[in-house]
C-alpha cells in the first residue's frame, strides 16, 4: 500500500515510496527543530501555517518498515488524505494523522474493555498506560498492534468463560477478523492466538470457532510473511547481518542465544524497563517525572492485581500458568526476531532492543493475574485514574523537557 521498489540515493535497489520532496524537507525541518533539542520544540509551531507540500516527487527509502502490512495504517492514512485534500501544512497534516490513529486505538481498546466485562476496569487501566497512549498518539505501527493485542486477549478470555454456549454470528465474525488482523500486524504477536487453544481442544460449542481463529490468524501471518520476506531489509545496520545464517546459528547454539538475552537484560535492563513506560529512547522526561510515572504505574497495577499472596495463588491456577507460558513464548519470539532481524551473526548481545516490544507479554500477564487474583486491593475506577495520572505526568514531563 505504501511501499514500492525503487533505487536509493546510491543507486541500490530498496523499498520506500514516491513522496513530494517538500514533504520530506518539511518533516526533516520539523524533526530537527523540535525532537532531540530540549527547550526548542515550540519552534516547530511556526510551520503550522506553511503551504501544503506539493510539487516534484522523489523516491524515499524506508526499508525497515516496508514489510509492515497496510492493516496497521488505515486511520493515519485517512488523516493524511484529509490533510492533503484540505491543502494543509505538513505539521497540520501530521497532527490530523496522529489524532486519527489515536481515535482508532481508543475505539479498538474500548471494544476490548467491553468484551472483558468482569475485569473491564483492569483492561481500561492497562489500555490507558503511558506506552499505549503515547504510541497511539504517534504515527507508528505500534498503536494499532497494541490495540489488537488487547482485543485478542479480551476475546480469548471471554470465549474461554462462555465456551459452553454456541457463539453468536457477530462473535464469529469479530473473532476471525481480529485473528486475521493480528496475523497481519507486527510479528510475532500472532502467537497470542495460542490463548484460544483451551477452546479449540475442548468438546464445547465454541470449539470450531477456536480452531477457526487459530487457523485464520496463523494462515494470514504466514501468507503476509512469505510475501513480505522480499521487502524487508535491515536498513542502517552492520553488513554482518544475515537472517538465514543467524537462524542457523541459533539452531546450532541455542545456549549462546539464551546467553545473549541474559547479557542484554543485564546491560540494558534499566533502559528496557524505562522504555516499557516511556516508549522511545529519544523521549527523556526529567527524572522526577519518570519517577512519578513509574510510581503511579506500579501502584495502579498493584491495586488491580491484589496482594502478593493472592498473585502467587493465582499463578498456581492452570489458566494463569498457561497464560504465563504463552507470555514467555512471545517474549522469546520477540528476542529471536530482534536477534535474527538486525543483529550480526553470533552477536553476544541483542542491540537496538526496545522495551515496548515486550508490552504485549506484560499486558497479557497483568490481565491474566487480575482475572485470576482472588481479591484485588481495589475494584473499580481508582487504578484507572492512577494510570491516567501516570500517563499525564509522562506527557507533561516530555513536554516540559522539549519546550
Amino acid at each position, binding site marked *: 500500500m505504501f511501499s514500492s521498489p525503487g533505487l536509493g540515493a546510491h543507486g541500490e535497489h530498496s523499498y520506500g515510496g514516491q513522496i513530494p520532496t517538500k514533504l520530506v524537507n518539511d518533516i526533516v525541518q520539523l524533526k530537527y527543530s*523540535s525532537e532531540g533539542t530540549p527547550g526548542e520544540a515550540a519552534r516547530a509551531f511556526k510551520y503550522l501555517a506553511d503551504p501544503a507540500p506539493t510539487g516534484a516527487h522523489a523516491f524515499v527509502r524506508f526499508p525497515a518498515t516496508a514489510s509492515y502490512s497496510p492493516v496497521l495504517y488505515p486511520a493515519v492514512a485517512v488523516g493524511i488524505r484529509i490533510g492533503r485534500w484540505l491543502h494543509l501544512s505538513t505539521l497540520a497534516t501530521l*497532527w490530523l494523522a*496522529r489524532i486519527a490513529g489515536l481515535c482508532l486505538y481508543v475505539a479498538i481498546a474500548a471494544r476490548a474493555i467491553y468484551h472483558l466485562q468482569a475485569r473491564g476496569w483492569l483492561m481500561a487501566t492497562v489500555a490507558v498506560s503511558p506506552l499505549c497512549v503515547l504510541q497511539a498518539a504517534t504515527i507508528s505501527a505500534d498503536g494499532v498492534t497494541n490495540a489488537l493485542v488487547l482485543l485478542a486477549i479480551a476475546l480469548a478470555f471471554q470465549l474461554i468463560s462462555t465456551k459452553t454456549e454456541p457463539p453468536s454470528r457477530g462473535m464469529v465474525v469479530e473473532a476471525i477478523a481480529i485473528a486475521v488482523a493480528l496475523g497481519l500486524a507486527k510479528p510475532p504477536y500472532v502467537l497470542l492466538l495460542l490463548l484460544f487453544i483451551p477452546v479449540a481442544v475442548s468438546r464445547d460449542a465454541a470449539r470450531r470457532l477456536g480452531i477457526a481463529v487459530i487457523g485464520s490468524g496463523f494462515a494470514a501471518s504466514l501468507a503476509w510473511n512469505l510475501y513480505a520476506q522480499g521487502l524487508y531489509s535491515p536498513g542502517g545496520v552492520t553488513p554482518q547481518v544475515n537472517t538465514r545464517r543467524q537462524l542457523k546459528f541459533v539452531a546450532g547454539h541455542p545456549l549462546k542465544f539464551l546467553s545473549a538475552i541474559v547479557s542484554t537484560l543485564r546491560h540494558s535492563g534499566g533502559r528496557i524497563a524505562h522504555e516499557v513506560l516511556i516508549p522511545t529512547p529519544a523521549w527523556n522526561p526529567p527524572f522526577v517525572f519518570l519517577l512519578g510515572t513509574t510510581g503511579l504505574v506500579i501502584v495502579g497495577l498493584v491495586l488491580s492485581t491484589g496482594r502478593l499472596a493472592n498473585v502467587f495463588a493465582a499463578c498456581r491456577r492452570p489458566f494463569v500458568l498457561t497464560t504465563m507460558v504463552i507470555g514467555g513464548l512471545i517474549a522469546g519470539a520477540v528476542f529471536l526476531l530482534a536477534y535474527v532481524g538486525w543483529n550480526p551473526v553470533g552477536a553476544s548481545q541483542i542491540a537496538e532492543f526496545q522495551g515496548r516490544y515486550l508490552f504485549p507479554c506484560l499486558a497479557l500477564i497483568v490481565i491474566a493475574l487480575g482475572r485470576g487474583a482472588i481479591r484485588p486491593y481495589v475494584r473499580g475506577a481508582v487504578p484507572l485514574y492512577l494510570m491516567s495520572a501516570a500517563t499525564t505526568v509522562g506527557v507533561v514531563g*516530555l513536554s516540559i523537557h522539549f519546550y
Partner: protein
Amino acid sequence: MADIMVSVRLLKSPIMSFVVLALAIGLGAALLSPAFTD
C-alpha cells in the same frame, strides 16, 4: 445539575471513563509531544 449527574454516571462505566481519559491525554500527547513518528 442534571448534566453533571449524567457525566458522573458515564464515568462510572469503564468504557466511557477510558474513552474520555485516553482521548484527553492522547490529544495532549498528539499536539505537544514532538516525536511525530517512532
